[in-house]
């Protein structure tokens, strides 16, 4: 199978959907000729013109709000939010408007929009361009949240997002834009709410999202050298969350480590860990462990920044401990 970058996969997904459906348009800062700072959208404006690939002023709440109104009236906007950190700017339009319109109107209004943005630290971009804020929006009922973990996932999930009748926020790992993965030439969709078991194992379940899937894959390799057989589950979408696949895995392995790049406190790891604790309690032979980003703003200095996110070493270390009945925290 051919291999393409995540960036190219996103570009293909949008182009294919724009060809298929004339109501789909792209809106955001520097999305047209510039093709975004990450060069994800290059070539779209040439094919679809400036009417459908719309450069905006630097006014995130403004174009986010306009996307909501456009979505309510027959269009399917794909909003480009240059950095995940700018979510804070669009929170009212996203959470008070887009997320609630369908429910609050008794099902009469629909807001089929996609907000594409990114997550991920270690790009040396400091605290306002490095955050992973998906938990923040996943907390708000009425939006769906997708977290692709590879080029393949990015394309399939984005196409599904564009066809969804609801607001969908899709977070791409900005460190993965240039990473290649096998992506079929033929069209495919990845349904929401279906976790992927990326590696089967018997000793510990590593539940990992987005950027952390790769981290867990390399942790699993090193664990296998010690005879520890890790299973990796990628939820793909955290809203809706397919917890059944996660629970099945944990019932099998009796141990779970949840790894996500959002801040550890009050985050995705906490949500998944508590579902495991609630629904698979009697199958647990070790405490469910959360591994998220440290609860600090992301520091600039590489030496400091690299400490803030889970690494394969950290994941493997914790996995070894719980598989050997050692304590991670005091008993």
């Amino acid at each position: 199978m051919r291999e393409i970058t995540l960036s190219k996969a996103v570009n293909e997904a949008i182009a294919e959907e724009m060809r298929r459906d004339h109501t789909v348009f792209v809106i955001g800062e520097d999305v047209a000729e510039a093709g975004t700072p990450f060069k994800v959208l290059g070539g779209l404006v040439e094919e679809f013109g400036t009417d459908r690939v719309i450069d905006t002023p630097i006014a995130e709440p403004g174009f986010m709000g306009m996307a909501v109104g456009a979505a309510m009236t027959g269009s399917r906007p794909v909003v480009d939010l240059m950095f995940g950190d700018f979510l804070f700017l669009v929170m009212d339009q996203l959470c008070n408007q887009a997320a609630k319109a369908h429910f609050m109107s008794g099902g009469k209004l629909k807001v089929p929009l996609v907000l594409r943005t990114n997550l991920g630290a270690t790009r040396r971009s400091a605290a306002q361009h490095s955050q992973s804020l998906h938990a923040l929006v996943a907390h708000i009922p009425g939006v769906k949240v997708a977290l692709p973990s590879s080029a393949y996932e990015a394309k399939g999930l984005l196409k599904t997002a564009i066809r969804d009748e609801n607001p969908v926020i899709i977070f791409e790992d900005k460190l993965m834009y240039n990473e290649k993965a096998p992506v079929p030439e033929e069209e495919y969709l990845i349904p929401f709410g279906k976790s992927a078991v990326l590696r089967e194992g018997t000793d510990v379940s590593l539940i990992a999202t987005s950027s952390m899937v790769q981290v867990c894959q390399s942790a699993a390799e090193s664990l296998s050298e010690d005879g520890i057989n890790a299973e990796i589950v990628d939820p793909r979408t955290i809203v809706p969350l397919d917890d059944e696949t996660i629970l099945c895995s944990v019932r099998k392995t009796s141990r779970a480590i949840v790894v996500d790049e959002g801040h550890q406190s009050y985050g995705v790891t906490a949500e998944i860990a508590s579902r495991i604790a609630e629904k698979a309690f009697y199958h647990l032979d070790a405490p469910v462990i959360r591994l998220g980003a440290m609860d600090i703003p992301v520091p600039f200095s590489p030496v400091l920044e690299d400490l803030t996110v889970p690494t394969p070493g950290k994941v493997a270390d914790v996995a070894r401990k719980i598989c050997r009945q050692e304590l991670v925290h005091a008993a």
Partner: protein
Amino acid sequence: MSATPRHNSEFYFRVYRQMARIRAFEDNANKLYLTAKMPGLTHLYSGEEAVAVGICEALRVTDKITSTHRGHGHCIAKGANFKHMFCELLGKREGYCRGKGGSMHIADQSNGNLGANAIVGGSMGIATGAALSAKLLGTDAVSVCFFGDGATAQGLMYEVMNMAALWKLPVIYACENNGYSEYTQTSEIAAGSITARAEAFGIEAHEVDGQDVLAVNELAAQLVERCRKGEGPFFVELLTYRLHGHHVGDINRDYYRSKEEEDHWKSERDPINLFGNWLIEHQIASNGDLVEIRREIDDNAAAAVKYALAAAYPDPSEVELHLFAEPMN
């Protein structure tokens, strides 16, 4: 009210009836609140009827509006019926929003109302986006964004007016300046001129007497047509007055506005009286005609209230209904 009659009498009767319907709805809403039959609070539109009716009478069903927390008037003016509105007000299953919206989100979406927004200034992006959508999809729909003077303090307005002006979007920003931003005089919260804000973006801005339904309608009709021709966006400041407080519970208002001022607007500047007098003056309707119209509306309203009070609440099984929209296919 200087305009000479230019429409047929059917049009004028409809305008009068729509304004009277808003007043009757609000009087009943107030009564429901005072008799503790209505959950929550409500913000009454009484006194501002000429704004909603004057503008909405210039719109088609396919044109879009966005409304505010003081939205009953927009809802009625854009074509909603009493029965489903009172049901919504009381949180009943047959309400326009199945009881999930209530007073602050009441909207008849089938008539192009994109929702009443309880975030002040929250709908400006939506109205502008609907105009963008109309332009992209090639429909000739025009959007009207209703908002109050208080919302001019929100930054979103400036972001979307900028883009609307850049892209010549068919949207009309209708600022209902009723003189008060909740419990504060507008002069205390808005520096400079309201219309100058739009003019800074090169948007043509107008100021109009919001108590004169014919003046409002005439201006709106012109601007809507020009929007359809791609000459938008426009900005209109409508000078008006709310006869009640900020909401039904805002009874003691002496600290921010005088009884004399309220009495003056009630006796001299009530838009329904002004228009009724104009109809009599131009011999389009007799006082008896107008009394009869109001009596008929009152009966309709009373029947709708009675219906809504007896109507069923949503089934508890609906509590999670419509969290997400289902796929179309």
